[in-house]
């Protein structure tokens, strides 16, 4: 390829990069962010829940761990074995489980703790059996993808414990490994 061609292509790359779209936030985002920062001061919000429609998750072929409506004020009754959702994983093959809460109200600074059985790990957190986030739930559907990896065939139960103020609920997911 001659130098003229290379120079022309370099120029085209530069021009394309200049034209590459510049992201803009949703209307009102700056105002909301500013209000939150000034009202909350140094309170730190971590790991915000991602709101999304169920449809897109289903379309993506992902497993939904739908833990139902969150009524933290109600007693945390034992979950009947038959009602515990379950998945079957393949050894050492990552599987994304989408943890979904339909919250009856907005919950600010809730704490979510995921507890894993021996042999199941959360991607990005090797060797950790318990991972905790602080998060806020919006009223309505809240969605968090968790990528699980089975490192042994033992399986077990993954627990998701949601705490807010002095109330909490625990949800269970049975994991079998084939």
């Amino acid at each position, binding site marked *: 390829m001659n130098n003229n061609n290379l120079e022309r292509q370099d120029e085209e790359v530069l021009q394309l990069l200049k034209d590459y779209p510049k992201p803009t936030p949703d209307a009102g985002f700056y105002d909301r962010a500013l209000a939150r920062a000034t009202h909350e001061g140094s309170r730190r*919000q971590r790991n915000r829940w991602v709101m999304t429609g169920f449809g897109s998750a289903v379309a993506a072929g992902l497993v939904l761990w739908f833990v139902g409506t969150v009524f933290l004020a109600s007693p945390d009754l034992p979950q009947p074995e038959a009602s515990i959702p379950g998945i079957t994983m393949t050894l050492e093959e990552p599987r994304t489980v989408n943890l979904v809460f339909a919250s009856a109200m907005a919950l600010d600074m809730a704490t979510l703790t995921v507890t894993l059985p021996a042999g199941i790990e959360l*991607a990005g957190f090797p060797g950790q059996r318990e991972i905790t986030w602080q998060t806020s739930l919006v009223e309505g559907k809240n969605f968090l993808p968790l990528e699980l990896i089975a490192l042994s065939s033992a399986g077990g139960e993954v627990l998701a414990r949601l705490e807010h103020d002095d109330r909490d609920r625990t949800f269970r997911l049975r994991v079998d490994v084939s």
Partner: protein
Amino acid sequence: MSSEANKQAFEALVQPHFDRLYRLAFRLTGRKTEAEDLFQELLIKAFGKLDDLVAIDEPGSWLSRVMYNLFIDEQRRYARRRMHTVEEGFLPVGGIEGFAGTESPERDQHRLEQLNQLDVALKQLSDDHRLIVLLHDTEGYKLEEIHTLMGIPVGTVKSRLHRARARLREILVQSGTFS
């Protein structure tokens, strides 16, 4: 200062930099949801350091560096989300839907296809190369500003920029975008 005065002082200092900071957050995280989180984290942190902020000559630079450091500190969290969060970026799943075309419909359509190919090509670069080329060539950062932001020597910024552009050219030629 009263809390209302604090709020007003904070707004006056940070608001002029919002667009640039939001775009930096987006270039760092690659997704709208994560960009919003990072932007929010920055504002919360910056408000907690209002006393420092008012004494700084170039708050925009300072805010950018704080944002970059926040991102690096929490990269694992953002990286994990990048891999698994349902796409919410400003670019639709199928690529770029439109841009501000000024030429004929045929030429605009051709340009749109080229931009989609560029989008695909950018995803094939390393994180560092993609960030540098987007900051410099799309966002208009100077080499010195990228050096200050990322804490790498200007010479390294320059060589990575050249390599990133060369790689983009290769990919675009291979995909038939350029003849």
